[in-house]
């Protein structure tokens, strides 16, 4: 089955999310749709899936024009979508999830689960998915859950499969396995549309690459093109993908976490005897798949986690038992994982956000009164220094792009006298250009002679940014290794397998 999008235009008010986009997915080909966040990839796929109606343009299946009123129509036409966030019910088994929505029944309206199990087994075996139809989905690793999503699409006989940012939640190993699966599906004659902004993956599997920027197709790339060339197309200017940093000038050990344990509100242990040290002028990256205790670790450092046990020392001060304000006052800068939720007040202006953590003191306040004149000057200076693209300092933070929002957060955190910088996934969801900027700022903070703790889920970021890498798995530090450690070893560690040959990097 051949799927073609011709001249798709989709507008939201004055914003043109898709501008005359053409895309052709053919059987036996993996077609990559490469673009930054906000380039219009998701809008295009929602148009294709019938969630949005295009303002102009047409969708053709096997050269015949079709109109999709909703996902049901698209599925009936043979289009399957593997969503970024899985649409699965965790307490159901694999088979139950797969038949959800079109349950097969026997005579008398009795659910025919046996048929579903058989079907799952059949598909699983033919592609080597290794999925047990009777397993409860909630118990399965993320990578396997994703396969369940794929099976779901295949059961309804999808000929065109759309993968929307599928690797965001996977470990490197799982990502590699997914690549293999995608190739198998291609070889079995399916047409695959792979939406991503990760250049490494594109280079590995793509047969054809369409690059999209600001809603427009800016060109086609070849899998053999270099990552720099592709990034330049995506961003519209030359980009430097490497993090440039000099060798770390290591100072004293000023930040020390020892035997830190933490429990969730429900009593579940989320951190288990975590110990590490960071020296002044050093970046330690906490690598690992999301949800292995990184969030809890940063929360514990900031004094936001309820039940903790152990020790966190900065410059000789014990951070455990202190509240957020006291921790910040000791000179901890914090870039939270979810900047819209924890880092910014969307309804506040850029200027107001810049003083969020210091609104009650000099130089932003005198007694009870805010010094808005000072704030204005301060904000104008920071906006310039951190290259925040906005109409002005009174623009609302919620109206900024992700990159500019992150710049505001960084500007705020880095404008204090810091003794420690903690940044959690500082480049998540950012465009290539902003990533470059954020990395520069982090390295600059390190070179100013403070310890820096970064939480990263992307292996590339971890190895490029880190002076050392601590890998976390299920609330424990599996090992602390040199950033030059082999990717495969790091990947194994992220999956919980302790690296034996790399212990020497531990200090």
């Amino acid at each position, binding site marked *: 089955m051949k799927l073609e999008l011709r001249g798709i235009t989709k507008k939201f008010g004055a914003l043109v999310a898709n501008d005359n986009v053409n895309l052709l997915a053919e059987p036996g080909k993996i077609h990559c749709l490469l673009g930054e966040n906000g380039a219009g990839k998701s809008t295009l796929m929602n148009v294709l899936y019938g969630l949005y109606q295009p303002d102009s343009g047409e969708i053709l299946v096997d050269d015949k024009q079709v109109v999709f009123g909703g996902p049901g129509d698209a599925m009936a036409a043979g289009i399957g979508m593997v969503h970024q966030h899985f649409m699965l019910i965790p307490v159901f088994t694999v088979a139950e999830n797969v038949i959800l929505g079109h349950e097969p029944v026997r005579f008398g309206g009795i659910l025919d689960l046996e048929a579903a199990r058989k079907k799952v087994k059949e598909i699983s075996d033919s592609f080597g998915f290794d999925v047990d139809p009777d397993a409860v989905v909630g118990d399965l690793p993320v990578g396997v859950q994703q396969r369940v999503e794929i099976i779901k699409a295949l059961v309804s006989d999808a000929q065109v499969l759309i993968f929307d940012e599928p690797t965001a939640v996977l470990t490197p190993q799982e990502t590699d396995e997914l690549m293999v699966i995608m190739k198998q599906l291609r070889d079995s004659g399916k047409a695959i549309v792979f939406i991503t902004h990760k250049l490494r993956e594109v280079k590995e599997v793509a047969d054809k690459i369409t690059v999209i920027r600001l809603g427009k197709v800016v060109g086609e790339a070849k899998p053999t093109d270099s990552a720099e060339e592709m990034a330049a197309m995506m961003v519209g200017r030359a980009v430097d993908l490497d993090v440039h940093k000099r060798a770390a000038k290591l100072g004293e050990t000023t930040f020390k976490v020892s035997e830190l344990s933490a429990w969730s509100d429900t009593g579940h242990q989320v951190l288990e005897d975590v110990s590490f040290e960071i020296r002044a002028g050093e970046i330690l990256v906490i690598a690992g798949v999301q949800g292995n205790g990184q969030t809890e670790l940063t929360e514990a450092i900031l004094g936001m986690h309820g039940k903790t046990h152990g020790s966190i020392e900065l410059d000789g001060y014990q951070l455990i038992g202190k509240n957020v304000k006291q921790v910040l006052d000791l000179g901890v800068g914090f870039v939270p994982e979810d900047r819209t939720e924890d*880092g910014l*007040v969307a309804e506040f202006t850029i200027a107001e956000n810049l003083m969020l953590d210091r609104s009650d003191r000099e130089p932003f306040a005198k007694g009870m009164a805010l010094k808005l004149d000072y704030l204005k000057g301060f904000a104008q200076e920071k906006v310039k220094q951190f290259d925040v693209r906005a109409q002005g300092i009174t623009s609302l933070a919620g109206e900024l792009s992700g990159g500019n929002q992150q710049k505001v957060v960084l500007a705020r955190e880095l404008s204090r006298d810091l003794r420690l910088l903690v940044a959690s996934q500082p480049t998540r969801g950012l465009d290539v250009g902003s990533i470059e900027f954020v990395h520069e700022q982090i390295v600059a903070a390190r070179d100013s002679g403070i310890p820096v703790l970064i939480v990263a889920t992307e292996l590339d970021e971890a190895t490029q940014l880190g002076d050392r890498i601590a890998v976390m798995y299920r609330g424990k530090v599996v090992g602390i290794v040199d950033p030059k450690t082999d990717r495969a070893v790091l990947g194994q560690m992220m999956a919980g397998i302790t690296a034996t040959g790399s212990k020497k990097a531990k200090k």
Partner: protein
Amino acid sequence: MTETQAKSRGQELVAQIFRGSWVLSALAVLTSFIAGGLLIALSNAGVQSASGYFVSRPLDTLTAIWNAVFGAYDALFRGSIFNYQSTTWVGMIKPITETLAYATPITFAGLGLAVAFRSGLFNIGGTGQIIFGAMFAGWVGIYVDLPFWIHFPLAVIAGVIGGAFYGALVGLLKATTGANEVIVTIMFNYIAALLLTYLLKTPILQAPKAVNPISPPVMESAKYPAFLGSDFRIHAGFIAMLLAVWGVWWLLNRSTMGFQFRALGHNPNASRVAGINIGLNYVLVMAVSGALAGLAGTSQILGTEGFLTTGVAASFGFDAITVALLGRNKPIGVLAAGILFGGLRAGAVTMQANQGVPIDIVFIVQSMIVLFIAAPPLVRAIYRLPTGEKSARKVSARKAAKAAAK
């Protein structure tokens, strides 16, 4: 560049007015008055009898409708703004002073609720906080005998403390136990009302030899001065209220405390991460909110009423919710809405006395204002305004385009 900037600012203002809220508020009020007029016409005896022969003489019905509606709203105007039928100057301007007298407690309490709403706390406890303010102020005003310059401020401060204490209690419960402030404040209203009823039946507050639950009168030395003389019910509480409008504006927009309140209201998570003490701020927000409601209580007990009864809070606690919403939680808006509600209350009496229009019509109009404000799409649909979402998206899209072009 400057020209385009000015232009876009103008466009934005227009967009903001239409998206936001001021136009919607005004339209909500207008729509409610139209609907109120419809009800007045329907319930009018003249209209009912004339409509009996509508087919033969339709003009009669229309005239009757006009007379009923015009008569009612004319009476409302005469009762609330300016009585052109009166022969004396005092009689002419009395209505507007009545309006402002009613507006005083409503606006005070409305300001209090606006502070809480802006901080993300849905304080429904205006009534209870007014009662506590009135009880504290009343006790000092009735039983403590001091010269005016000490007695009056002391009584007002007691009222502020009473309201603040009762509000802060809610904040404390929320901060320490995570209790939902909506439920707590609703329950606290009952506690305050029943406590007041009880105290008014015991010698603590009941006037000696009184049969009814009523307190002795507040001493003159504790009362808000009636700056227009004893012909008028308006008193210095009105001036204090205007000061409070400015004070709340300053608190919310120019003070460190207000900044933290607003941050908390918009995004408690980000506030927490920025080191703002959430629990402490819950207590502070509710204390400030309660203090303002307490001032509403003082304007009743030390101003218009002069003694405590179980009806001291009237319906001001709930009117204040509407007033805060109608005023979009902005001090100046709350003042405007408070005066509107004061006017409705003052005018309703004349409307009933002169035209026989039941006072309930005014309550219906007030309720409909709430309804229309709570359902902006309804008002937008009636007047075919662009939806807020769309124009908001346009604005942000324009901004994004501009930023990209730089």
